[in-house]
């Protein structure tokens, strides 16, 4: 009888260890805080009259006093150790958008760049009339040799939710662009709109190699909170 209890106790202790580890780890790896697009009025779209949501974000080349880096809850030692100089999307990378509405995202781009690997990604895809506005000028694509980042939403492996693909390249700042008071050059404002479908979960990431390690896809490129995140359509 005593042995039965001890055996059960062993099992319980084991289960406890597993549960505890799972909780700790999942807390340490949690996503950065969610930012929501604000719905204001409606807009005419090819799909008809839809609610219109707007969202404003920035891309910084590195953290600084004016632009503190992303707050990653926990975040592994290696990340914390050398993420100060990493480029990142601000204020956060966990985005929440309203379903079945027109979403307009405005991005202030402060970072330099260069040649993108896949020229096709220098082309705007999936936005309304396939264009994006760069400092007021509407373009269908930008110079592949002068890309800073891209904002690329793509599919989550869920056959039950609508297929969703948006790609908007961000032109690079000139390398010699002079900084302003906040320590960054004058931002390039990129505005684009797309129509969301039924609710679903998606992910997005930057497709321009701006990280560390092999083909510069390590570091920020492979780290939620910097150059990749989630898009939740609700």
């Amino acid at each position: 009888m005593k042995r039965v209890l001890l055996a059960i106790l062993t099992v319980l202790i084991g289960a406890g260890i597993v549960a505890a580890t799972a909780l700790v780890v999942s807390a340490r790896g949690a996503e950065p805080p969610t930012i929501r697009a604000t719905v204001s009025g409606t807009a005419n779209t090819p799909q008809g009259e839809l609610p219109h949501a707007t969202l404003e974000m920035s891309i910084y080349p590195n953290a600084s006093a004016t632009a503190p880096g992303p707050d990653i809850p926990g975040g592994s030692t290696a990340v914390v150790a050398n993420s100060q100089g990493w480029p990142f999307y601000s204020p956060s990378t966990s985005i929440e958008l309203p379903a079945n509405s027109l979403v307009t995202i405005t991005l202030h781009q402060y970072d330099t760049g260069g040649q993108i690997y896949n020229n096709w990604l220098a082309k705007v895809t999936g936005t309304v009339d396939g264009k994006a506005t760069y400092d007021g000028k509407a373009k269908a694509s930008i110079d592949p040799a002068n890309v800073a980042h891209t904002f690329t939403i793509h599919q989550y492996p869920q056959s039950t939710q609508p297929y969703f693909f948006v790609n908007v390249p961000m032109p690079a700042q000139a390398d010699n662009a002079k900084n302003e008071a906040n320590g960054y050059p004058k931002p390039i404002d990129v505005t684009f709109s797309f129509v969301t479908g039924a609710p679903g979960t998606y992910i997005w990431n930057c497709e321009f190699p701006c990280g560390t390690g092999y083909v510069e896809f390590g570091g920020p490129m492979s780290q939620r909170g910097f150059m990749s995140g989630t898009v939740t359509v609700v």
Partner: protein
Amino acid sequence: MSTLDERPTPEADEPEIPTNRPAPLGIVSRWLKRPYARRILQLTVVITAVIIGLTFVMVAFMNMSGGPASDIMNEIEKTMFVLTFVCAPLMGFTLAVITYSWWGGWGMVPADETPTEEGPAIRTNGVAVVVWVSVCSMLAAFLVIWGLVELATITASSYGSVPSNQQPRDAKAIDINVTGQQWLWSFEYPGNGRVTSDVLVVPVNVPLYFNVTSLDVLHSFWVVEAGVKIDANPGAITNTGFTPNKLGTFNIRCAELCGLHHAYMETKLVVVTQQDFDSWIREQGGAKTS
């Protein structure tokens, strides 16, 4: 046992020998009379049947998401049936023996007692060894031959009739450049004015020929329902191909761990009619299929 054959064979003219002599097939029939023999054979038959039945379940699972969508997938499923049919009897026998023994068919000594009597001192059995080894070897040989033929077949339909020079089977085949990168697939149609797309749109019943490469790490280009898979290697171009034979939307997944968003590196294969394909190419701003 061999002593049986050394029996002096009687002359033709001598009287018939009393009936207590074992029949010509004496060994087998006496073996079959042993209490366990029939049991094990019955079990074997049952289990074999079950295993063969399971194959249909397996293939049903493979077709759950709408396949088979290509000639190659049909070949693969056929091969699975063949492989199972060939191996099933062997598995059936093995499982039958362990089930019988585990069930105590030959008796069983409880764990808390110590065995008293010894078992039969069977060091080996020439017949059993020869039969088993030759059967297994023949099965293996058959599997190899079948596999080689099948491989040649699907290679022919993915690379063309000559695997070595990896050329499209015929001029009609649509050339598609598949680029894997972290964490996207993009498809370029060189024959159609370099149209590039994030989904793979193809006409039905037209052979496709893929050049696959990667811009960064290893990916694996897996068209699930078409049963086609080839790694996308950085610094090298690999080839595969198939002929879609079913209209509809199917899955393309990355089957090689490629980093943060590996799980999300998926897109669609959309098989449409030739007309729809042409119009799609046009609205992508590409030229008509040449």
